[in-house]
């Protein structure tokens, strides 16, 4: 997994609550059996004026000029500023894959949906929860100042604004450690293989029917 330490990134404000994963990456792109290449279809239905399909070239598709990602001043943004309950709906990990492929490395919102929040960490994206009043203010500052960028420091757990104001955020210690070091979850879990085995042995005695399996 990719490491995350300090990010100095242009901010793009997406002023909508309850942005769901269907909107982040529409269902037709879920037919892919690959992990990469979803970036051009991030927010497809909002970003383009026509209908996108897997395999269709995105270069000459008509862009929706009103959608924030299409505004030149936000090109190359790597921090997404969002509203409440970002990433709700389907569990599709294609949503963080698409965000990451597009270049988003951190998302700031007052709240996230649980599964999406979790999926971000698996893909080197840092989701940051800040107080709703703070997020409100960041929206205003970002919209008022072209080129608005934030510095996100995972180790120090701070977001720093262009005026030097530093805002602290919370993150779970284990997740922070894994993200800072780019550690593979499965490898870490397999260090506990003896405990998993011991658990299985005990459970087989207590609840043998859980091991009769789906193979009949």
């Amino acid at each position: 997994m990719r490491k995350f330490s300090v990010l100095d990134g242009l901010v793009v404000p997406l002023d909508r609550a309850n942005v769901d994963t269907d909107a982040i990456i529409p269902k037709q792109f879920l037919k892919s059996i690959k992990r990469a290449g979803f970036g051009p279809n991030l927010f497809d239905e909002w970003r383009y004026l026509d209908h996108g399909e897997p395999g269709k070239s995105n270069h000459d598709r008509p862009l929706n000029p009103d959608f924030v990602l299409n505004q030149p001043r936000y090109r190359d943004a790597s921090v997404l500023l969002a509203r409440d309950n970002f990433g709700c709906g389907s569990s599709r990990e294609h949503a963080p894959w698409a965000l990451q492929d597009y270049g988003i490395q951190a998302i700031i919102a007052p709240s996230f949906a649980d599964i999406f929040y979790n999926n971000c960490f698996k893909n080197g994206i840092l989701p940051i929860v800040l107080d709703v009043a703070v997020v409100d203010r960041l929206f205003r500052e970002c919209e008022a100042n072209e080129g608005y960028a934030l510095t996100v420091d995972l180790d120090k757990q701070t977001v720093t604004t262009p005026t030097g104001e530093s805002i602290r955020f919370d993150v779970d210690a284990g997740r922070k450690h894994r993200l800072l070091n780019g550690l593979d979850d499965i490898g870490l879990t397999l260090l506990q293989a003896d405990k998993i085995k011991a658990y299985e042995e005990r459970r087989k005695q207590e609840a043998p029917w859980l091991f009769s399996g789906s193979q009949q």
Partner: protein
Amino acid sequence: MSGQTLFQKLWDAHVVHVESDGTTLLYIDRHLVHEVTSPQAFEGLKLAHRTPRRADAAIAVPDHNVPTTDRSQGIADPVSRLQVETLDANCAEFGITEFRMDDIRQGIVHVIGPEEGLTLPGMTVVCGDSHTSTHGAFGALAFGIGTSEVEHVLATQCLWQKPSKTMLVKVEGQLGKGVTAKDIALAIIGEIGTAGGTGYALEFGGSAIRALSMEGRMTLCNMAIEAGARAGMVAVDQITIDYVKGRPYAPKGAAWDQAVAWWNTLHSDGDAKFDRVIELDAAQIEPQVTWGTSPEMVTTINGRVPDPADAPSEVKRHDWTRALEYMGLAAGTPIAEIAVDKVFIGSCTNSRIEDLREAASVAKGRKVSPNVKLAMVVPGSGLVKRQAETEGLDRIFVEAGFEWREPGCSMCLAMNADRLEQGERCASTSNRNFEGRQGQGGRTHLVSPAMAAAAACAGHFVDVRKE
């Protein structure tokens, strides 16, 4: 010390290891796999030269991409076909049981788990699908995961988790005639909002829940995720045990007795403490219809489309305005005056036999309105379909003018050929009314199966209690 909640009991039974910060390695008993969220997980496994730790704990089924019309020709869309074939190949390679497209047991992953007895009380159940919360109806701890976690479960049979907070949703009293579990679910979401359950495991309790069938409990737990909760659950009782008994993969003989003895303990203790409790009066719940693009944008059949000027906050006013624009609705329109173009009865929320019986009882002897272009019924599994046909429900639907289809996710998310066209309005028994969910530009109104059938016959929403 106070007693334990059902969540705590299920959690404690599955702890493998706890880190100093409370992060827990939790053992997973059942892993349900479908074609959309698994290919990248299998690929990751292969790249790392790993194999599933317990192929016997997994069960796979294609459901999202499968056609609901004649299957003898296979899947027409090559991209969908490749995804299903990839699942077939991965399951064959790793020795995972799969109910393939031509198997009578094939169906929506959240329908077949319970139907086959693969979902059992007391289990931890996961699937790369957010509606895994459905299985909590059995007194199981069931939640959706992402593809990285699918790979993690295949490789280790465990997941890293932190305990959730717990919320008791208590529904007391008796539901009115024509009011169903779907209406309870939507009423709860209307009450707490789509983020109201975030960070919580929900337990549904109270006399109205106790009175629900397993199908109704599954509908309710299915929608827990739409309230923001990864897991929803209902305590085990005799209704649960009677449902499980005799299912193909349920324990038999002495193992059955041993299992039942444990299952009978799977309820929250009387003095258990929840982090939050909310209460609803079942008698007050009316048939629900969503009017917007989020399940919390819901009112009753006798309500009206709200006016954004009355929204409780600036952000909500903005959301409501946008939703009304997308839905093509004017504030103040009575719900019962909204005409529909299509009707979809199906999805993991409402495609089980009881759902089809409810819909059929409304459709019986009537005709789909001429202004409805398509009304379709998509059973949740091949076995549900067969059962419905044995009971003659298919004939009721067909005579009324509904299409009777093959099982799958179908127009719930429109990954196959079943979809809404731009601007079309649909009465749907599914679970999400997001923009574009049932097809780009499509407009979804979530309702119960009975309300969907009534809307199909009337051509617009009607109060099924007056039918």
